[in-house]
């Protein structure tokens, strides 16, 4: 029997989950399509089989909030080019190492002599730079608003100590512009959102209020444990049933309306809002973060002259439609055929948080 773990097991309580499911069943009088934004939420829903337990009238579609999935192919190719250089120690979060570029991934670069290291924090990468002054240390700064503050902090620290052998390859993206893109699409089916709890922990939820008003959708900041997710779904269903397009927080133990002001301040000091391409979706205006001019010397793209590297997606991969909630992973013709976690055609099949990988791992037919 697992020993109870505080702040986790309360939110995994099967009895509480059952009550919430009953309540959702009671409240839902018609079909609703709800998108969970974050890949961590998708993973938890499928891992715990919550989709099997919800009434048929509630359809969950899986959103674009998997940082590994939306990092564009050209960023991966640029990472591979930099990591292969003799003078470079390339550092990254673990799950970026298996993301395929056109022909290889970072593991393959490592196997052919590249110095590629997994770090658990960008500050570890800076420490590697301090310890190896004759090497160029590069950190792959990917992710949403969740990773942006720590990634900003490491650049700020590097600047403060005048660290010349450190740079970051930035591929930071933001949630609200992606939500607007999804809601503006002619094929959109999403009627309500579970906003990504940890993104909201940093940014707060004030910035979602105009989105809710403009597109007339309820948005509910939601956590990641089964009870959190079911409470978020229940609140979204209630708002939908009552026709209320509001933002209501269901992750109160972590999220406040204004977010984390210290984290937002360091982000604003180091990064500025720029246009960013999203893997599978394409360019979304004002959806990304890039280094401000004052920190340009820490930009690995400029330092290693890789901005001209471009890349083309596999024509078979439909991850763009999956990431926008227009297609379920198992609706893709290549799913579990040409495309598996061992041979992924797109990043949604790579990351543990990718919708396609989650479907493959947890959702393949159980008779």
């Amino acid at each position: 029997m697992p020993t109870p773990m505080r702040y986790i097991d309360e939110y995994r309580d099967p009895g509480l989950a059952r009550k919430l499911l009953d309540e959702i069943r009671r409240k839902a009088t018609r079909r609703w399509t709800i998108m969970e934004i974050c890949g961590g939420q998708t993973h938890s829903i499928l891992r715990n089989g919550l989709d099997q337990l919800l009434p048929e009238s509630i359809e969950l579609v899986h959103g674009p909030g998997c940082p590994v999935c939306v990092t564009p192919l050209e960023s991966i190719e640029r990472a591979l080019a930099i990591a292969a250089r003799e003078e470079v120690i390339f550092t990254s979060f673990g799950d970026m190492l298996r993301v395929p570029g056109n022909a290889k991934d970072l593991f393959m670069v490592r196997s052919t002599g590249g110095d590629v290291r997994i770090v658990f924090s960008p500050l570890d990468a800076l420490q590697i730079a301090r310890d190896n002054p004759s090497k160029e240390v590069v950190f792959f700064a990917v992710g949403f608003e969740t990773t942006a503050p720590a990634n900003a902090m490491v650049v700020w620290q590097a600047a403060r100590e005048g660290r010349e052998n450190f740079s970051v390859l930035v591929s930071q993206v933001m949630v609200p512009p992606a939500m607007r893109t999804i809601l503006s699409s002619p094929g959109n089916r999403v009627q309500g959102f579970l906003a990504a709890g940890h993104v909201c922990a940093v940014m707060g939820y004030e910035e979602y209020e105009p989105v809710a008003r403009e597109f007339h959708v309820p948005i509910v900041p939601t956590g990641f444990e089964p009870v959190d997710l079911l409470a978020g779904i229940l609140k979204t269903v209630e708002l939908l049933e009552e026709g209320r397009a509001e933002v209501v927080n269901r992750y109160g133990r972590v999220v406040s309306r204004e977010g984390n002001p210290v984290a937002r301040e360091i982000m604003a000091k180091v990064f500025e809002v720029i246009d960013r391409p999203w893997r599978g979706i394409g360019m979304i205006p004002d959806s990304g973060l890039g280094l401000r001019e004052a920190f340009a010397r820490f930009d690995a793209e400029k330092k290693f002259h890789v901005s001209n590297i471009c890349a083309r997606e596999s024509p078979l991969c439909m991850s763009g439609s999956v990431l926008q909630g227009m297609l379920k992973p198992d609706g893709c013709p290549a799913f579990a055929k040409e495309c598996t976690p061992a041979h992924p055609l797109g990043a949604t099949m790579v990351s543990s948080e990718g919708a396609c990988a989650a479907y493959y791992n947890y959702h393949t037919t159980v008779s």
Partner: protein
Amino acid sequence: MTIAPTCPTPIMQHETVQMAHGAGGRLSQVIMQRVFMPHLSNAFLDLLDDQAKLDLPSGRTAFTTDTYVVSPVFFPGGNIGELAVNGTVNDLAVGGARPLYLSAGFVLEEGLLLAELETIVRSMAEAARRAGVMIVTGDTKVVGKGQCDRIFINTSGIGVIREGVDLSCRNLKAGDSIILSGTVGDHGMAIMTSREGLSFHSRITSDCAALNGMIASMLDELPCAIHAMRDPTRGGVAATLNELASSSSVGIEIHESTIPVKPDVRGACELLGIDPLHVANEGKLVVAVAADNAKQALDLIRSFDLGRDAVIIGSVVDDHPDMVVMRTLYGSRRIIDLPLGEQLPRIC
């Protein structure tokens, strides 16, 4: 030319492994006499022949080999030496064999501290003594700095299978109970949390242990009811259950609420986004046993210190052949698949 009496003689006392220690010359003898023989000495090894000549008891012979390259070499709860003995002992024992003799081949990196090598060899001797096996032949090679990671060890083992015992991963039958002998993920998380770069500290220790004593008791009491046994090492319990299901063309259903995980291991797995079922163990057993004898087998396993946390985690079913399915805490079902490869901590 005469050698001047002041000419320096070669250094014979080293603190680290030198290339010459593996060259078969005088320094090879020094490392044998100073490091290996004091700990491993026995009637077979002392002959220093190129081979051990063994008389085996009657019965079928089991033979296995494994190579150990764990990093770090010293980890909480053990080191590469005892892992190399226990791992091979367990590979023999889960096939129903009584482990008897082991070989040990060492690949040493130039510059390895001889004191560290001695600690490792001493651990091997102690592990062999505890498991009741003898290391009867061996070999040492030295490679240049950077050509291996301090020390690699290969051990091969021979054991004899008792009459009437037929353990095989092809033997699972619908209705069998699946017993897990204790908590999952201890070894893998002990290694992962002690690796460089992970800036948190834990009290997790490896479960590295020889299982042959416990297994022998089970086969004494229930020689026919035990259908299969595996030690869930790399790939964890998930990989072992998948191998059993596909080898026997049956389904396995397990219950999430029954899986024992130590709090520290669980915490580390939660932080890193890793499923404890995918994490390696080095002193655990997965047993498929006839349902009628499951309670007896469980009580027996629990009577050993190594098996005190044993539980029945599920059963073999006719449904979904080749597939392992977990009943979640919420009553839903999900597939437990083989892990793809290295466990990768996720971004957020």
